[in-house]
């Protein structure tokens, strides 16, 4: 049973192995890397990208993509920033921010399902609309003077050196993992991404499933934004630019199939941590920052190539299994 479970997670194990290998290599190059403080830094670095990547994993599993998350992120930052500035209690502002993100995500979902738009184009459009709205909302200026009571929600350290934002990351990961693996919606999402026509012909409500998927994606972007807002203390309408690409990279490294139907939260989390560990590691050993882009890009390409090899291998293994089964029958 354990063996078969592990076999199903071969991709996650491979990413985990790569992560451990990376930590070992950097630790040898510079022992500072292995200190607990640095480990927390890695996770901190990975928090925002991790939450965004979890969100986009839902969109990708459904067979689509969401390019607008960086802009949803920005809108939530300025909106929640403004709410807290005018004195709305932090927790109320956070709930409203989450709802706002979910609504913006569901707009993407509705465009994609009801208007039958390509996810890439639909979210390319909303990406620009949301970014524009964030600027319009603040007149181009950042929202200043975020009250400390809001910032403390995410920055307080309840356990040792670990800020609450990291706890939020893990809480979101656990909840979304359960949603994806244990609910009907999660099962349907994989089915829709794996074969939309077959899912439809199995009585699955394809549109509803996709819209919920994009709402979760938007809500995750909102939470990432609210953490950013707490960390920086200002609501910058230009923030989050290009974050969607980092999120896609983390999901891809974690084994999410870009064509849909396959991917896990654990994989995406490990992917985000791997990219963060790489970035911090290169800073620690003093690699020129330009090279960091090059290395990150190479890692993404290797991960994608690994995916295609893995597909071929598993097809070969299955064929062998099938032959063996057929032989056993005779």
């Amino acid at each position, binding site marked *: 049973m354990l063996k078969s479970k592990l076999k199903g997670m071969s991709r996650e194990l491979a990413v985990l192995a790569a992560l451990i290998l990376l930590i070992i290599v950097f630790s040898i190059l510079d022992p500072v890397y292995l200190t607990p403080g640095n480990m927390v830094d890695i996770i901190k670095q990975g928090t925002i990208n991790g939450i965004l990547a979890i969100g986009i994993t839902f969109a990708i599993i459904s067979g689509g993509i969401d390019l607008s998350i960086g802009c949803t992120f920005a809108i939530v930052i300025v909106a929640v920033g403004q709410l807290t500035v005018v004195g709305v209690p932090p927790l109320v502002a956070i709930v409203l921010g989450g709802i706002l993100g979910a609504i913006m995500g569901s707009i993407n979902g509705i465009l994609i399902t009801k208007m039958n738009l390509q996810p890439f184009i639909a979210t390319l459009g909303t990406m620009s609309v949301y970014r524009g709205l964030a600027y319009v909302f603040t007149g181009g200026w950042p929202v200043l003077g975020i009250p400390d009571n809001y910032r403390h929600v995410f920055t307080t350290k309840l356990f040792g050196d670990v800020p609450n934002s990291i706890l939020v990351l893990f809480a979101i990961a656990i909840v979304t993992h359960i949603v994806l693996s244990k609910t009907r919606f999660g*099962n349907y999402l*994989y089915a829709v991404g794996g074969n939309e026509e*077959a899912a439809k012909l199995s009585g699955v409500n394809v549109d509803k499933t996709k819209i919920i998927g994009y709402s979760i994606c938007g809500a995750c972007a909102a939470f990432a934004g609210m953490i950013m807002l707490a960390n920086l203390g200002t609501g910058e309408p230009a923030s989050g630019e290009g974050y969607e690409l980092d999120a896609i990279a983390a999901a891809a490294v974690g084994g999410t199939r870009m064509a849909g139907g396959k991917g896990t939260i654990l994989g995406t989390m490990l992917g985000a941590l791997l990219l963060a560990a790489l970035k911090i590691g290169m800073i620690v050993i003093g690699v020129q920052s330009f090279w960091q882009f090059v290395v990150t890009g190479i890692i993404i390409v290797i991960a994608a190539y690994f995916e295609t090899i893995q597909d071929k291998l598993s097809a070969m293994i299955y064929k062998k299994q099938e032959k063996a089964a*057929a032989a056993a029958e005779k």
Partner: protein
Amino acid sequence: MKNAVEFKNISKNFPGVRVLNNVNFAIQEGEVHALLGENGAGKSTLLNILHGLYTDYEGDVYLNGEKVHFKNPYDAIVNGKISKVHQETNVVKDLTVGQNITLGYEPKKGCFVDYKNLNDTVNNILQRLNCRFKAEDSAAFLSAGEMQMVAIAKALFHNSNVISLDEPTASLTTKETDALFKIIRELKANGMTVIYVSHRLEEIFQICDRATILRDGECITTLEIDKTDRDELIRNMVGRNVNAVASRMQESRVQEETVLEVKHLTRNKVFYDINFELKKGEILGFAGLVGSGRTDVMRTIFGADKKSSGHIYMGGKHVHIRNTQDALRHGIGLLPEERKTQGFIRYTTNTDNIALSCLEKFLKMGMVSNDMKLKNCEHFMKELNINPKIPDFQTQNMSGGNQQKVILAKWLSTNANILIFDEPTKGVDVAAKAEIYRLMEDIVASGKSVIVISSELPEIMGISDRIIVMCEGRKTAELLPDEFSEETILNYAMGGKKDAEIQA
């Protein structure tokens, strides 16, 4: 008369099946030669061999007395001067007509395409064909008939001597068909050899000189069209050995109660005014040629396509099925024809594929229980004898028959009491076929009802309690077992309207 094409001892195997067995016949130069046979008789395979699509076959093909073995379709077109007009013509909509016709062989001036030369050459050909469009026109706005002309023009551009038309009139209007026939007669007058595949026998009598009939991969006979009639052609197409026929092992389970009634169901431009009843415990067959609208009727009943008008009643009550969820709720299940693209989810295990349509049954405190899914899967693997019996196995890696059983298990897991099988034995080996027939009998024995679409006449006659025949989107006959015969069904399926009126 010289032979333009000659087939000598042609045989071809697909994994597990012999689709052509020792085919011998010749096509004379300058004749229009019909290739006839039921679905699956081997016509398309033979054409694909002739046109270089299949290179791996036994026997020899002679072209103008010379032995040829084309490496690919382009080799056949360019070196063999032999072209095929496909059932679905391939036109690149973003190019002009001229670019389409010369694609890959554009006249050049230096390293640039010589468009003046190109358009002049093409316009000459189009003029010969009496086409109203020009080489410079965009291909995006061509009608089905015009696309057919583009394909024929392409054959002329390559100076083809032999041209095959595979169901050329399937998507043409009557007027377009007449125009096409005029062109064919002109080509023939100019010495062109035409191979003509069609299910419409009237056309064969209008346009063809001789007809070769294939059945189950064998060449039955070649007949002169002047000296034969419709009956003789059909008789030669269907006559087969009786052993291969599917038959019922249990007695009929048809009960009085009507579980499904369809009235005046129409989906514009696809099918019209379909009426039928389905009884409890009945296996109702839907016969007809590929493209007659059977699948579309079923998809519409199942809510996968929208109806234009008409009503559906279940158990006497008017029901509204707007989407597949509604169908599922009303207890209708569909096993689609294209298993790979429509039947199951890729990268997904048998357990999950079987559980997909009834996840609400496997909830434990609001969460989907993997154990319950697994138990359900194991239950059906045993009950339906699904092999290999590995719940974790990905469905896409199983054999066709077992995939079909996984899809069946999915519907049996739900409360569906009407199961629609669309070509359930397509691509399934003989042993699995027999098993699927037995399963269908078990299903009706348990008080459920089955609708089965099949293009294999012996199959549908063997298992159905009643057969509805469709032709070109309309119901042409409803037959009871004592009226079942391949000749009758084929006659209605090919639009034998006269007889239908007499019997109705």
